[in-house]
């Protein structure tokens, strides 16, 4: 199979569409987070970039840096993978934000804290996928999430191993979640199945929901 990111049509057609979809997806994810926490959570304008696989760990403090990864897959017409990664210290801050305790309270990620992070992944992934699927008139079924607490390199191997056979690049969406004067930056790695990307490019998908324009 050829690398879909090397297809010029990807850059001309699909990438602008993905940028709009990313915005809608993140809006959906934030609604889910706000519902989960009962707090008003907002998000900064997400950035969508294509990143080389061997560059990812540098963005996260290096491959030996400790981090938390929340991983899920999407199945159905829009299949692919989603990984949220937080450097360990930021994961602690995010837990503080979610359970509404002062910054610095959470010192360790036990099973309760990991469940909270899994739920972040579950909600953000599900709402993200559903927003995009709804825009395109497609079906997507997210799987339950898996939470990993380990070195960045080891966590990233989950997506690198499944992507590296087809493409040297993955899509990265970066967004900062804000609650009051607190913020927690998260990196969202969205890895559509290359077959799905190729189908998107070939079919020249248009956005179904006219309130969003490419």
């Amino acid at each position, binding site marked *: 199979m050829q690398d879909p990111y090397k297809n010029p049509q990807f850059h001309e057609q699909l990438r602008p569409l993905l940028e709009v979809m990313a915005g809608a997806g993140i809006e959906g994810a934030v609604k889910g987070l706000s519902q989960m926490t009962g707090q008003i959570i907002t998000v900064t304008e997400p950035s969508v970039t294509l990143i080389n696989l*061997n560059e990812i760990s540098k963005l996260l403090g290096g491959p030996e840096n400790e981090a938390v990864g929340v991983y899920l897959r999407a199945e159905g017409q829009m299949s692919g993978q989603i990984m949220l990664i937080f450097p360990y210290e930021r994961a602690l801050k995010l837990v503080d934000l979610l359970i509404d305790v002062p910054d610095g309270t959470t010192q360790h990620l036990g099973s309760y804290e990991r469940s909270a992070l899994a739920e972040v992944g579950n909600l953000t992934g599900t709402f993200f996928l559903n927003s995009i699927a709804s825009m395109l008139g497609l079906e997507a079924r997210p799987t339950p999430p898996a939470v990993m607490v380990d*070195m960045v390199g*080891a966590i990233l191997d989950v997506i*690198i*191993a499944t992507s590296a056979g087809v493409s040297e690049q993955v899509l990265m969406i970066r967004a900062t979640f804000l609650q009051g004067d607190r913020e927690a930056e998260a990196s969202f790695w969205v890895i559509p199945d290359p077959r799905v990307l190729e189908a998107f490019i070939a079919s020249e998908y248009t956005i179904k929901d006219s309130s969003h324009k490419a």
Partner: protein
Amino acid sequence: MNNIVVGLGEIKISNNSDDVLVAYGLGSCLGIAMYDPVIHLAGMLHAVLPTCDPNIANSDACVKYVCCGIDVMLQQIIGKGAIRNRIVVRMAGGANMLASSSFSDIMNIGQRNIESAHMKLNEMKFKITGEEVGGNIGRTVRFYVTEGRMAIRMMGGKERDV
């Protein structure tokens, strides 16, 4: 000590006594080292995927696959003077990072990497003199060229020899 980073899908070779070949944060990836103890020449491969597509056997991308990577690494260290029947092999990595989840059976690339390496090295009649593979925790792997030893470190843990 001079750390020589072996990145994803790379091979690094050294016979410099100050060098340490390092593969950081191996999850499902495998760090495979070949070493000639007489001339203190070491090679380390950071392999990502288990299977070898014959269509890319001659390309740079081949090295990210376990079997092609081992072939290329052997050629490179023999090219630098290693003698085949002196070479010892050690490896580490191949963890299943999703072991506790519902994905574990369908996505155990770590285990497939280990099996591919065992099969390949067995075919080539190399004996693995030390390995620390499998499990579900990431490892940083170091190969100390002058001493010819491999050591691993896990998150929060101390370095120990393989």
